[in-house]
Protein backbone atom coordinates (compact mmCIF):
# COMPACT_ATOMS: atom_id res chain seq x y z
CA UNK A 1 0.00 0.00 0.00
CA UNK A 2 1.41 3.36 -1.05
CA UNK A 3 1.95 5.75 1.82
CA UNK A 4 0.92 9.37 2.07
CA UNK A 5 4.59 10.38 2.00
CA UNK A 6 4.69 9.12 -1.61
CA UNK A 7 1.97 11.57 -2.54
CA UNK A 8 2.52 14.59 -0.36
CA UNK A 9 6.24 15.24 -0.84
CA UNK A 10 7.55 18.33 0.90
CA UNK A 11 8.24 20.08 -2.41
CA UNK A 12 4.62 19.51 -3.46
CA UNK A 13 3.28 20.93 -0.23
CA UNK A 14 5.62 23.89 -0.63
CA UNK A 15 4.22 24.68 -4.09
CA UNK A 16 0.71 24.23 -2.69
CA UNK A 17 1.29 26.62 0.21
CA UNK A 18 3.34 29.10 -1.82
CA UNK A 19 2.17 28.83 -5.41
CA UNK A 20 4.52 30.41 -7.95
CA UNK A 21 3.35 32.64 -10.79
CA UNK A 22 -0.04 33.02 -9.22
CA UNK A 23 -2.27 35.59 -10.85
CA UNK A 24 -3.69 36.75 -14.16
CA UNK A 25 -2.35 38.35 -17.31
CA UNK A 26 -4.43 40.79 -19.38
CA UNK A 27 -6.21 38.71 -21.99
CA UNK A 28 -5.83 39.58 -24.78
CA UNK A 29 -3.00 39.84 -25.55
CA UNK A 30 -2.32 36.84 -23.26
CA UNK A 31 -3.98 33.57 -24.13
CA UNK A 32 -6.37 32.33 -21.44
CA UNK A 33 -7.09 28.60 -21.15
CA UNK A 34 -9.32 26.90 -18.62
CA UNK A 35 -8.92 23.41 -17.24
CA UNK A 36 -11.83 21.96 -15.34
CA UNK A 37 -12.47 18.59 -13.77
CA UNK A 38 -16.23 18.34 -13.34
CA UNK A 39 -15.96 15.21 -11.19
CA UNK A 40 -13.93 16.76 -8.40
CA UNK A 41 -14.38 20.46 -9.13
CA UNK A 42 -10.70 21.30 -9.61
CA UNK A 43 -10.31 24.45 -11.68
CA UNK A 44 -7.22 25.88 -13.31
CA UNK A 45 -6.88 28.95 -15.52
CA UNK A 46 -3.57 29.30 -17.34
CA UNK A 47 -2.52 32.62 -18.90
CA UNK A 48 0.18 32.43 -21.57
CA UNK A 49 2.09 35.35 -22.96
CA UNK A 50 3.86 33.97 -26.02
CA UNK A 51 6.32 36.28 -27.71
CA UNK A 52 8.17 35.20 -30.82
CA UNK A 53 7.92 31.50 -30.12
CA UNK A 54 8.88 31.90 -26.45
CA UNK A 55 6.64 31.71 -23.39
CA UNK A 56 7.56 35.12 -22.07
CA UNK A 57 5.23 34.90 -19.10
CA UNK A 58 2.78 32.46 -17.54
CA UNK A 59 0.30 32.94 -14.71
CA UNK A 60 -2.07 30.54 -13.05
CA UNK A 61 -5.27 30.95 -11.08
CA UNK A 62 -7.80 28.41 -9.90
CA UNK A 63 -8.77 26.37 -6.94
CA UNK A 64 -8.60 22.73 -6.09
CA UNK A 65 -6.68 20.07 -4.24
CA UNK A 66 -3.00 20.25 -3.32
CA UNK A 67 -2.00 18.05 -6.24
CA UNK A 68 -3.76 20.07 -8.94
CA UNK A 69 -2.57 23.40 -7.56
CA UNK A 70 1.03 22.39 -6.85
CA UNK A 71 1.37 20.73 -10.24
CA UNK A 72 0.15 23.94 -11.89
CA UNK A 73 2.66 25.96 -9.89
CA UNK A 74 5.52 23.64 -10.86
CA UNK A 75 4.40 23.69 -14.47
CA UNK A 76 4.53 27.48 -14.53
CA UNK A 77 8.09 27.59 -13.21
CA UNK A 78 9.32 24.97 -15.65
CA UNK A 79 7.86 26.43 -18.87
CA UNK A 80 8.30 30.14 -18.19
CA UNK A 81 10.99 31.52 -20.49
CA UNK A 82 11.11 28.38 -22.61
CA UNK A 83 10.46 28.13 -26.31
CA UNK A 84 7.22 26.53 -27.42
CA UNK A 85 9.13 23.49 -28.65
CA UNK A 86 10.89 23.12 -25.31
CA UNK A 87 7.59 23.49 -23.48
CA UNK A 88 6.04 20.78 -25.64
CA UNK A 89 8.97 18.52 -24.80
CA UNK A 90 8.40 19.11 -21.10
CA UNK A 91 4.70 18.37 -21.51
CA UNK A 92 5.58 15.09 -23.23
CA UNK A 93 8.05 14.26 -20.51
CA UNK A 94 5.56 14.97 -17.77
CA UNK A 95 2.77 13.03 -19.47
CA UNK A 96 5.27 10.22 -19.93
CA UNK A 97 6.07 10.28 -16.26
CA UNK A 98 2.38 9.84 -15.50
CA UNK A 99 1.58 7.27 -18.17
CA UNK A 100 4.68 5.11 -17.70
CA UNK A 101 3.70 4.66 -14.13
CA UNK A 102 0.13 3.97 -15.12
CA UNK A 103 1.45 1.25 -17.41
CA UNK A 104 3.47 -0.19 -14.56
CA UNK A 105 0.42 -0.29 -12.37
CA UNK A 106 -1.56 -1.96 -15.13
CA UNK A 107 1.08 -4.63 -15.64
CA UNK A 108 0.88 -5.47 -11.98
CA UNK A 109 4.59 -5.19 -11.22
CA UNK A 110 6.53 -2.30 -9.86
CA UNK A 111 9.71 -2.80 -11.83
CA UNK A 112 8.90 -0.84 -14.95
CA UNK A 113 9.47 -3.66 -17.43
CA UNK A 114 7.53 -1.87 -20.13
CA UNK A 115 9.03 -0.66 -23.37
CA UNK A 116 9.17 2.98 -22.28
CA UNK A 117 12.24 4.28 -20.44
CA UNK A 118 11.90 3.66 -16.73
CA UNK A 119 12.08 7.33 -15.86
CA UNK A 120 9.61 8.24 -18.56
CA UNK A 121 11.58 11.28 -19.60
CA UNK A 122 12.14 12.82 -22.96
CA UNK A 123 15.79 12.82 -23.93
CA UNK A 124 17.37 16.05 -22.82
CA UNK A 125 14.50 17.19 -20.61
CA UNK A 126 15.25 17.61 -16.94
CA UNK A 127 12.11 17.36 -14.85
CA UNK A 128 13.66 18.80 -11.70
CA UNK A 129 11.06 19.41 -8.99
CA UNK A 130 8.43 17.79 -11.18
CA UNK A 131 9.87 14.40 -10.37
CA UNK A 132 8.30 14.81 -6.94
CA UNK A 133 4.93 14.26 -8.60
CA UNK A 134 5.98 10.71 -9.53
CA UNK A 135 4.26 9.42 -6.39
CA UNK A 136 0.90 10.59 -7.71
CA UNK A 137 0.70 7.60 -10.04
CA UNK A 138 0.45 5.30 -7.06
CA UNK A 139 -2.90 7.01 -6.47
CA UNK A 140 -4.49 6.66 -9.92
CA UNK A 141 -7.53 8.77 -9.05
CA UNK A 142 -5.24 11.73 -8.52
CA UNK A 143 -3.45 11.58 -11.90
CA UNK A 144 -6.17 13.76 -13.40
CA UNK A 145 -5.47 16.37 -10.72
CA UNK A 146 -1.77 16.41 -11.61
CA UNK A 147 -2.30 16.65 -15.38
CA UNK A 148 -5.09 19.25 -15.35
CA UNK A 149 -2.86 22.32 -15.76
CA UNK A 150 -0.65 20.52 -18.27
CA UNK A 151 -3.61 19.76 -20.50
CA UNK A 152 -4.59 23.42 -20.31
CA UNK A 153 -1.05 24.42 -21.23
CA UNK A 154 -1.01 22.00 -24.17
CA UNK A 155 -4.35 23.33 -25.36
CA UNK A 156 -3.04 26.90 -25.14
CA UNK A 157 0.04 26.06 -27.16
CA UNK A 158 -2.06 24.26 -29.76
CA UNK A 159 -4.32 27.28 -30.10
CA UNK A 160 -1.28 29.53 -30.32
CA UNK A 161 0.08 27.32 -33.08
CA UNK A 162 -3.12 27.70 -35.08
CA UNK A 163 -3.01 31.46 -34.81
CA UNK A 164 0.69 31.97 -35.47
CA UNK A 165 2.36 28.95 -37.00
CA UNK A 166 5.85 28.82 -35.58
CA UNK A 167 8.65 28.89 -38.13
CA UNK A 168 9.47 25.39 -39.33
Amino acid at each position, binding site marked *: *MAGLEDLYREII*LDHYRNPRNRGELPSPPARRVEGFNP*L*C*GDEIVVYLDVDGGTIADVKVTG*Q*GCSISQSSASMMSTVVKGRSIDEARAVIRAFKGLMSVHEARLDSGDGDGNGAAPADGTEPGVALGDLAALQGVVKFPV*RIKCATLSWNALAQGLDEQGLDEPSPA
Partner: protein
Amino acid sequence: MARLIDRVGSVDGGLLRADFPVLDRPREGPRLVYLDSASSSQKPRAVLETMDAYYESSYANVHRGLYSIAEESDRLFAEARTKVGRFIGAPVPGREVVFTKNATESLNLVAQAWGRHHLREGDAILLTEMEHHSNLVPWFILAEQLGLELRYLSVDDHGQLALDDLERLADGVKLIGVTLMSNVLGTINPLGPIVEAARANGAIVVGDGSQYVPHVPTDVTALGCDFLAFTGHKMLGPTGIGVLWGREELLDATPPFLGGGSMIRDVRLDGYEPNELPWKFEAGTPPIAEAIGLGAAVDYLQALGMDAVRGHEIDLTAYALDTLTRRHGDAIVIHGPRDPCRQGGLLSITYKDVHPHDLSQVLDQAGVCVRAGHHCAKPLMRRLGVSGTARASLYVYNDESDVDALAEALTQAEALFF
Protein backbone atom coordinates in the same frame (compact mmCIF):
# COMPACT_ATOMS: atom_id res chain seq x y z
CA MET B 1 -29.19 -18.70 10.55
CA ALA B 2 -29.45 -16.68 13.74
CA ARG B 3 -28.90 -13.04 13.06
CA LEU B 4 -27.76 -10.25 15.27
CA ILE B 5 -30.74 -8.20 14.25
CA ASP B 6 -32.82 -10.30 16.62
CA ARG B 7 -31.94 -7.68 19.22
CA VAL B 8 -35.10 -5.78 18.35
CA GLY B 9 -35.55 -2.38 19.90
CA SER B 10 -31.98 -1.13 19.87
CA VAL B 11 -29.19 -0.99 17.38
CA ASP B 12 -25.62 -1.89 18.29
CA GLY B 13 -23.53 -0.88 15.30
CA GLY B 14 -20.49 -2.81 16.50
CA LEU B 15 -22.48 -6.04 16.68
CA LEU B 16 -24.33 -5.48 13.43
CA ARG B 17 -21.03 -5.06 11.58
CA ALA B 18 -20.73 -8.85 11.55
CA ASP B 19 -23.78 -8.99 9.24
CA PHE B 20 -21.94 -6.96 6.57
CA PRO B 21 -19.24 -9.02 4.90
CA VAL B 22 -17.38 -6.12 3.30
CA LEU B 23 -16.80 -4.46 6.66
CA ASP B 24 -14.89 -7.58 7.71
CA ARG B 25 -12.85 -8.02 4.55
CA PRO B 26 -9.22 -8.87 5.02
CA ARG B 27 -7.08 -5.89 4.14
CA GLU B 28 -3.70 -4.34 4.75
CA GLY B 29 -3.60 -1.76 7.48
CA PRO B 30 -6.41 -0.63 9.74
CA ARG B 31 -9.94 -2.01 9.61
CA LEU B 32 -12.42 -0.48 7.22
CA VAL B 33 -14.34 2.40 8.80
CA TYR B 34 -17.18 2.98 6.38
CA LEU B 35 -18.63 6.47 6.72
CA ASP B 36 -20.09 6.92 3.24
CA SER B 37 -23.55 5.40 3.54
CA ALA B 38 -25.23 8.57 2.32
CA SER B 39 -23.57 7.84 -0.99
CA SER B 40 -24.31 4.13 -0.88
CA SER B 41 -24.83 1.74 1.99
CA GLN B 42 -23.21 -1.65 2.45
CA LYS B 43 -25.31 -4.79 2.09
CA PRO B 44 -26.04 -7.31 4.82
CA ARG B 45 -25.52 -10.99 4.17
CA ALA B 46 -29.31 -11.44 4.32
CA VAL B 47 -29.74 -9.32 1.18
CA LEU B 48 -26.89 -11.00 -0.69
CA GLU B 49 -28.14 -14.48 0.22
CA THR B 50 -31.72 -13.66 -0.75
CA MET B 51 -30.61 -12.51 -4.19
CA ASP B 52 -28.33 -15.51 -4.68
CA ALA B 53 -31.05 -17.90 -3.56
CA TYR B 54 -33.50 -16.32 -5.98
CA TYR B 55 -31.12 -16.70 -8.93
CA GLU B 56 -30.23 -20.24 -7.88
CA SER B 57 -33.72 -21.56 -7.24
CA SER B 58 -36.52 -19.52 -8.82
CA TYR B 59 -35.19 -17.24 -11.51
CA ALA B 60 -37.36 -16.56 -14.54
CA ASN B 61 -38.78 -13.45 -16.14
CA VAL B 62 -41.87 -11.94 -14.57
CA HIS B 63 -45.31 -11.18 -16.03
CA ARG B 64 -45.25 -13.67 -18.88
CA GLY B 65 -44.34 -17.18 -17.81
CA LEU B 66 -46.90 -19.90 -17.28
CA TYR B 67 -44.53 -22.36 -15.63
CA SER B 68 -43.75 -22.88 -12.00
CA ILE B 69 -40.54 -20.91 -11.52
CA ALA B 70 -41.97 -18.01 -13.51
CA GLU B 71 -44.90 -18.00 -11.14
CA GLU B 72 -42.48 -18.03 -8.21
CA SER B 73 -40.70 -15.07 -9.73
CA ASP B 74 -43.99 -13.22 -10.10
CA ARG B 75 -44.90 -13.95 -6.51
CA LEU B 76 -41.51 -12.89 -5.10
CA PHE B 77 -41.50 -9.71 -7.20
CA ALA B 78 -45.01 -8.81 -6.04
CA GLU B 79 -44.11 -9.56 -2.42
CA ALA B 80 -41.12 -7.22 -2.68
CA ARG B 81 -43.41 -4.46 -3.91
CA THR B 82 -45.79 -5.00 -1.03
CA LYS B 83 -42.95 -4.99 1.51
CA VAL B 84 -41.57 -1.73 0.15
CA GLY B 85 -45.04 -0.17 0.08
CA ARG B 86 -45.80 -1.15 3.68
CA PHE B 87 -42.37 0.13 4.75
CA ILE B 88 -43.41 3.66 3.74
CA GLY B 89 -47.05 3.33 4.75
CA ALA B 90 -48.40 3.33 1.20
CA PRO B 91 -52.20 3.00 1.31
CA VAL B 92 -52.27 0.83 -1.83
CA PRO B 93 -48.84 -0.84 -2.07
CA GLY B 94 -49.73 -3.03 -5.04
CA ARG B 95 -50.57 -0.05 -7.26
CA GLU B 96 -48.71 2.90 -5.84
CA VAL B 97 -45.16 1.55 -5.68
CA VAL B 98 -43.36 1.88 -9.01
CA PHE B 99 -39.97 0.24 -9.37
CA THR B 100 -37.41 2.31 -11.25
CA LYS B 101 -33.64 2.19 -11.69
CA ASN B 102 -32.91 4.69 -8.94
CA ALA B 103 -34.28 7.84 -7.30
CA THR B 104 -32.97 9.90 -10.20
CA GLU B 105 -35.13 7.96 -12.63
CA SER B 106 -38.09 8.29 -10.27
CA LEU B 107 -37.75 12.09 -10.28
CA ASN B 108 -37.28 12.19 -14.05
CA LEU B 109 -40.44 10.11 -14.34
CA VAL B 110 -42.43 12.67 -12.39
CA ALA B 111 -40.97 15.54 -14.41
CA GLN B 112 -41.39 13.99 -17.84
CA ALA B 113 -44.62 12.06 -17.34
CA TRP B 114 -46.64 14.03 -14.78
CA GLY B 115 -44.98 17.41 -15.42
CA ARG B 116 -45.01 17.39 -19.17
CA HIS B 117 -48.66 16.42 -19.20
CA HIS B 118 -49.93 18.73 -16.47
CA LEU B 119 -47.76 21.83 -16.74
CA ARG B 120 -47.99 24.61 -19.33
CA GLU B 121 -45.81 27.47 -20.51
CA GLY B 122 -45.50 30.12 -17.84
CA ASP B 123 -46.33 27.76 -14.94
CA ALA B 124 -44.11 28.12 -11.89
CA ILE B 125 -42.52 25.40 -9.82
CA LEU B 126 -40.76 25.85 -6.50
CA LEU B 127 -37.58 23.98 -5.59
CA THR B 128 -34.99 24.57 -2.87
CA GLU B 129 -31.39 25.66 -2.81
CA MET B 130 -30.40 22.44 -1.02
CA GLU B 131 -31.61 19.96 -3.64
CA HIS B 132 -29.42 17.24 -5.06
CA HIS B 133 -28.80 17.70 -8.78
CA SER B 134 -31.29 14.88 -9.38
CA ASN B 135 -34.10 17.06 -8.05
CA LEU B 136 -32.92 20.08 -10.03
CA VAL B 137 -31.78 19.03 -13.47
CA PRO B 138 -34.95 17.07 -14.42
CA TRP B 139 -36.88 20.27 -13.72
CA PHE B 140 -34.37 22.37 -15.69
CA ILE B 141 -34.90 20.06 -18.65
CA LEU B 142 -38.67 20.30 -18.29
CA ALA B 143 -38.49 24.07 -17.88
CA GLU B 144 -36.58 24.32 -21.15
CA GLN B 145 -39.12 22.11 -22.89
CA LEU B 146 -42.22 23.90 -21.62
CA GLY B 147 -41.04 27.37 -20.67
CA LEU B 148 -41.55 27.12 -16.91
CA GLU B 149 -40.63 29.58 -14.19
CA LEU B 150 -38.32 28.11 -11.54
CA ARG B 151 -38.27 29.51 -8.01
CA TYR B 152 -36.12 28.53 -5.06
CA LEU B 153 -36.46 28.45 -1.31
CA SER B 154 -33.13 29.59 0.07
CA VAL B 155 -31.09 28.04 2.88
CA ASP B 156 -30.30 30.07 5.99
CA ASP B 157 -27.06 30.14 7.95
CA HIS B 158 -28.22 27.26 10.15
CA GLY B 159 -28.73 24.98 7.18
CA GLN B 160 -32.51 25.31 7.34
CA LEU B 161 -34.92 26.27 4.58
CA ALA B 162 -35.95 29.92 4.84
CA LEU B 163 -39.62 29.13 5.37
CA ASP B 164 -40.47 32.77 6.01
CA ASP B 165 -40.40 33.16 2.24
CA LEU B 166 -42.54 30.09 1.63
CA GLU B 167 -45.93 31.74 1.33
CA ARG B 168 -44.65 34.39 -1.09
CA LEU B 169 -42.67 31.95 -3.23
CA ALA B 170 -45.38 29.30 -3.30
CA ASP B 171 -47.96 31.76 -4.55
CA GLY B 172 -49.36 30.40 -7.81
CA VAL B 173 -46.95 27.46 -8.15
CA LYS B 174 -48.10 24.15 -9.61
CA LEU B 175 -45.45 21.94 -8.02
CA ILE B 176 -43.05 22.02 -5.09
CA GLY B 177 -40.00 19.74 -5.19
CA VAL B 178 -38.14 19.31 -1.91
CA THR B 179 -35.71 16.93 -0.32
CA LEU B 180 -36.86 15.40 2.95
CA MET B 181 -33.26 15.29 4.17
CA SER B 182 -30.34 17.19 2.70
CA ASN B 183 -27.59 14.92 1.41
CA VAL B 184 -25.04 17.57 2.36
CA LEU B 185 -26.25 19.11 5.61
CA GLY B 186 -28.41 16.31 6.94
CA THR B 187 -31.18 18.85 7.53
CA ILE B 188 -34.56 17.20 7.96
CA ASN B 189 -37.01 19.52 6.26
CA PRO B 190 -40.42 20.07 7.85
CA LEU B 191 -42.82 18.91 5.17
CA GLY B 192 -45.94 20.13 7.01
CA PRO B 193 -45.82 23.82 6.08
CA ILE B 194 -44.62 22.98 2.57
CA VAL B 195 -47.54 20.64 1.97
CA GLU B 196 -49.89 23.25 3.41
CA ALA B 197 -48.54 25.93 1.07
CA ALA B 198 -48.87 23.55 -1.86
CA ARG B 199 -52.46 22.69 -0.99
CA ALA B 200 -53.35 26.38 -0.72
CA ASN B 201 -52.17 26.77 -4.32
CA GLY B 202 -53.50 23.51 -5.71
CA ALA B 203 -49.91 22.37 -6.24
CA ILE B 204 -48.45 18.92 -5.76
CA VAL B 205 -45.42 18.09 -3.59
CA VAL B 206 -42.64 15.88 -4.91
CA GLY B 207 -40.43 14.62 -2.10
CA ASP B 208 -36.89 13.37 -2.59
CA GLY B 209 -36.63 10.72 0.11
CA SER B 210 -33.25 9.31 -0.90
CA GLN B 211 -31.58 10.23 2.40
CA TYR B 212 -34.69 10.14 4.55
CA VAL B 213 -36.40 6.83 3.89
CA PRO B 214 -33.34 4.68 4.78
CA HIS B 215 -32.95 6.41 8.15
CA VAL B 216 -36.25 7.74 9.47
CA PRO B 217 -39.60 5.98 10.00
CA THR B 218 -41.61 6.98 6.94
CA ASP B 219 -45.36 7.22 6.44
CA VAL B 220 -46.33 8.83 3.16
CA THR B 221 -49.82 9.63 4.40
CA ALA B 222 -48.50 11.46 7.44
CA LEU B 223 -45.91 13.28 5.33
CA GLY B 224 -48.63 14.47 2.99
CA CYS B 225 -46.53 14.55 -0.17
CA ASP B 226 -47.92 13.41 -3.51
CA PHE B 227 -44.86 11.70 -4.92
CA LEU B 228 -41.90 10.27 -3.03
CA ALA B 229 -38.70 9.12 -4.72
CA PHE B 230 -36.03 6.98 -3.07
CA THR B 231 -33.45 4.39 -3.93
CA GLY B 232 -32.59 0.87 -2.81
CA HIS B 233 -28.82 1.05 -2.59
CA LYS B 234 -28.81 3.64 0.18
CA MET B 235 -31.03 1.44 2.40
CA LEU B 236 -29.01 -1.80 2.49
CA GLY B 237 -30.42 -2.97 -0.84
CA PRO B 238 -28.69 -3.52 -4.18
CA THR B 239 -27.98 -0.94 -6.87
CA GLY B 240 -30.24 -0.75 -9.91
CA ILE B 241 -33.53 -0.53 -8.01
CA GLY B 242 -35.30 2.70 -7.15
CA VAL B 243 -38.81 3.51 -6.09
CA LEU B 244 -41.39 6.07 -6.99
CA TRP B 245 -44.36 6.16 -4.70
CA GLY B 246 -47.28 8.25 -5.91
CA ARG B 247 -50.85 8.76 -4.78
CA GLU B 248 -52.98 6.34 -6.74
CA GLU B 249 -55.20 8.94 -8.41
CA LEU B 250 -52.15 10.97 -9.45
CA LEU B 251 -50.41 7.97 -10.96
CA ASP B 252 -53.66 7.10 -12.74
CA ALA B 253 -53.76 10.62 -14.19
CA THR B 254 -50.14 10.43 -15.35
CA PRO B 255 -49.31 9.17 -18.83
CA PRO B 256 -46.55 6.55 -19.28
CA PHE B 257 -42.89 7.54 -19.10
CA LEU B 258 -40.86 4.89 -20.95
CA GLY B 259 -42.53 2.80 -23.60
CA GLY B 260 -42.04 -0.89 -24.35
CA GLY B 261 -43.07 -4.29 -23.11
CA SER B 262 -45.01 -4.81 -19.85
CA MET B 263 -46.28 -1.23 -19.77
CA ILE B 264 -48.98 -1.89 -22.36
CA ARG B 265 -52.35 -3.56 -22.34
CA ASP B 266 -52.66 -3.64 -26.10
CA VAL B 267 -50.55 -2.60 -29.05
CA ARG B 268 -51.84 -2.11 -32.57
CA LEU B 269 -50.06 -0.58 -35.51
CA ASP B 270 -52.06 2.58 -34.98
CA GLY B 271 -51.52 2.93 -31.24
CA TYR B 272 -51.37 1.37 -27.79
CA GLU B 273 -53.25 1.22 -24.55
CA PRO B 274 -51.24 1.54 -21.36
CA ASN B 275 -51.32 -1.12 -18.68
CA GLU B 276 -52.69 -0.83 -15.14
CA LEU B 277 -50.70 0.59 -12.28
CA PRO B 278 -47.92 0.09 -11.45
CA TRP B 279 -46.85 -1.71 -14.66
CA LYS B 280 -47.79 1.33 -16.75
CA PHE B 281 -44.52 2.82 -15.54
CA GLU B 282 -42.34 -0.29 -15.72
CA ALA B 283 -41.41 -0.77 -19.35
CA GLY B 284 -39.24 -3.76 -20.20
CA THR B 285 -37.92 -6.50 -17.96
CA PRO B 286 -37.63 -4.95 -14.51
CA PRO B 287 -34.75 -5.39 -12.04
CA ILE B 288 -36.35 -8.48 -10.52
CA ALA B 289 -33.58 -9.78 -8.30
CA GLU B 290 -32.83 -6.22 -7.21
CA ALA B 291 -36.44 -5.68 -6.18
CA ILE B 292 -36.38 -8.94 -4.23
CA GLY B 293 -33.08 -7.87 -2.66
CA LEU B 294 -34.63 -4.56 -1.69
CA GLY B 295 -37.47 -6.51 -0.09
CA ALA B 296 -34.89 -8.38 2.00
CA ALA B 297 -33.27 -5.06 2.97
CA VAL B 298 -36.66 -3.80 4.12
CA ASP B 299 -37.09 -6.99 6.18
CA TYR B 300 -33.71 -6.36 7.79
CA LEU B 301 -34.51 -2.73 8.64
CA GLN B 302 -37.93 -3.65 9.97
CA ALA B 303 -36.45 -6.34 12.18
CA LEU B 304 -34.20 -3.66 13.65
CA GLY B 305 -37.14 -1.30 13.86
CA MET B 306 -36.92 2.06 12.15
CA ASP B 307 -37.48 3.85 15.46
CA ALA B 308 -34.40 2.07 16.78
CA VAL B 309 -32.45 2.94 13.62
CA ARG B 310 -33.34 6.61 14.00
CA GLY B 311 -32.58 6.51 17.73
CA HIS B 312 -29.19 4.97 17.05
CA GLU B 313 -28.35 7.66 14.53
CA ILE B 314 -29.46 10.48 16.82
CA ASP B 315 -27.19 9.09 19.55
CA LEU B 316 -24.27 8.59 17.20
CA THR B 317 -24.68 12.00 15.57
CA ALA B 318 -24.67 13.64 18.99
CA TYR B 319 -21.52 11.72 19.86
CA ALA B 320 -19.88 12.70 16.56
CA LEU B 321 -20.75 16.40 16.87
CA ASP B 322 -19.40 16.42 20.42
CA THR B 323 -16.25 14.42 19.68
CA LEU B 324 -15.24 16.32 16.56
CA THR B 325 -15.88 19.70 18.14
CA ARG B 326 -14.08 18.79 21.34
CA ARG B 327 -11.03 17.33 19.62
CA HIS B 328 -10.69 19.74 16.72
CA GLY B 329 -12.28 22.93 17.98
CA ASP B 330 -11.82 25.85 15.65
CA ALA B 331 -9.96 23.79 13.06
CA ILE B 332 -13.18 22.14 11.96
CA VAL B 333 -16.39 23.54 10.51
CA ILE B 334 -19.39 21.22 10.51
CA HIS B 335 -21.95 22.58 8.07
CA GLY B 336 -25.64 22.24 8.82
CA PRO B 337 -27.99 22.27 11.80
CA ARG B 338 -25.55 20.62 14.27
CA ASP B 339 -28.62 19.37 16.10
CA PRO B 340 -29.02 15.57 16.18
CA CYS B 341 -32.80 15.80 16.46
CA ARG B 342 -33.16 18.04 13.42
CA GLN B 343 -30.75 16.26 11.13
CA GLY B 344 -29.72 12.85 9.91
CA GLY B 345 -26.41 11.17 10.59
CA LEU B 346 -24.57 13.32 8.06
CA LEU B 347 -21.59 15.51 8.87
CA SER B 348 -20.23 17.75 6.14
CA ILE B 349 -16.83 18.91 7.27
CA THR B 350 -14.39 21.61 6.32
CA TYR B 351 -11.04 21.15 8.06
CA LYS B 352 -9.06 24.38 8.09
CA ASP B 353 -8.32 25.01 4.42
CA VAL B 354 -7.41 21.45 3.56
CA HIS B 355 -9.08 20.60 0.29
CA PRO B 356 -11.74 17.89 0.75
CA HIS B 357 -9.95 15.55 -1.66
CA ASP B 358 -6.73 15.82 0.27
CA LEU B 359 -8.64 15.27 3.48
CA SER B 360 -10.37 12.20 2.09
CA GLN B 361 -7.02 10.85 0.88
CA VAL B 362 -5.48 11.26 4.32
CA LEU B 363 -8.48 9.64 6.02
CA ASP B 364 -8.29 6.72 3.60
CA GLN B 365 -4.84 5.89 4.97
CA ALA B 366 -6.54 5.33 8.31
CA GLY B 367 -9.15 3.10 6.68
CA VAL B 368 -11.77 5.84 7.01
CA CYS B 369 -14.04 6.15 3.95
CA VAL B 370 -15.71 9.54 3.52
CA ARG B 371 -17.04 11.31 0.46
CA ALA B 372 -15.25 14.42 -0.77
CA GLY B 373 -16.52 16.97 -3.23
CA HIS B 374 -19.69 18.80 -4.09
CA HIS B 375 -22.03 15.86 -3.36
CA CYS B 376 -24.05 16.61 -6.50
CA ALA B 377 -25.34 19.78 -4.87
CA LYS B 378 -23.31 22.54 -6.47
CA PRO B 379 -25.84 25.31 -5.87
CA LEU B 380 -25.73 24.51 -2.15
CA MET B 381 -21.91 24.50 -2.22
CA ARG B 382 -22.02 28.01 -3.65
CA ARG B 383 -24.45 29.03 -0.92
CA LEU B 384 -22.07 27.64 1.71
CA GLY B 385 -19.16 29.39 0.02
CA VAL B 386 -17.08 26.24 -0.35
CA SER B 387 -15.93 24.26 -3.38
CA GLY B 388 -16.71 21.04 -1.60
CA THR B 389 -16.78 19.31 1.75
CA ALA B 390 -15.68 16.02 3.22
CA ARG B 391 -18.82 14.21 4.30
CA ALA B 392 -19.00 11.48 6.91
CA SER B 393 -22.32 9.66 7.03
CA LEU B 394 -23.54 7.12 9.57
CA TYR B 395 -25.74 4.06 9.42
CA VAL B 396 -26.77 1.02 11.41
CA TYR B 397 -23.34 -0.67 11.26
CA ASN B 398 -21.45 2.33 12.65
CA ASP B 399 -20.68 2.94 16.27
CA GLU B 400 -18.65 5.28 18.44
CA SER B 401 -15.38 3.58 17.53
CA ASP B 402 -15.93 4.66 13.90
CA VAL B 403 -16.39 8.25 14.98
CA ASP B 404 -13.25 7.98 17.12
CA ALA B 405 -11.33 6.67 14.10
CA LEU B 406 -12.51 9.67 12.08
CA ALA B 407 -11.53 12.12 14.80
CA GLU B 408 -8.12 10.49 15.16
CA ALA B 409 -7.48 10.42 11.40
CA LEU B 410 -8.20 14.15 11.20
CA THR B 411 -5.22 14.78 13.47
CA GLN B 412 -3.05 13.20 10.78
CA ALA B 413 -4.30 15.79 8.30
CA GLU B 414 -3.27 18.44 10.78
CA ALA B 415 0.19 16.92 11.03
CA LEU B 416 0.63 16.66 7.28
CA PHE B 417 -0.65 19.99 6.07
CA PHE B 418 0.22 22.37 8.92
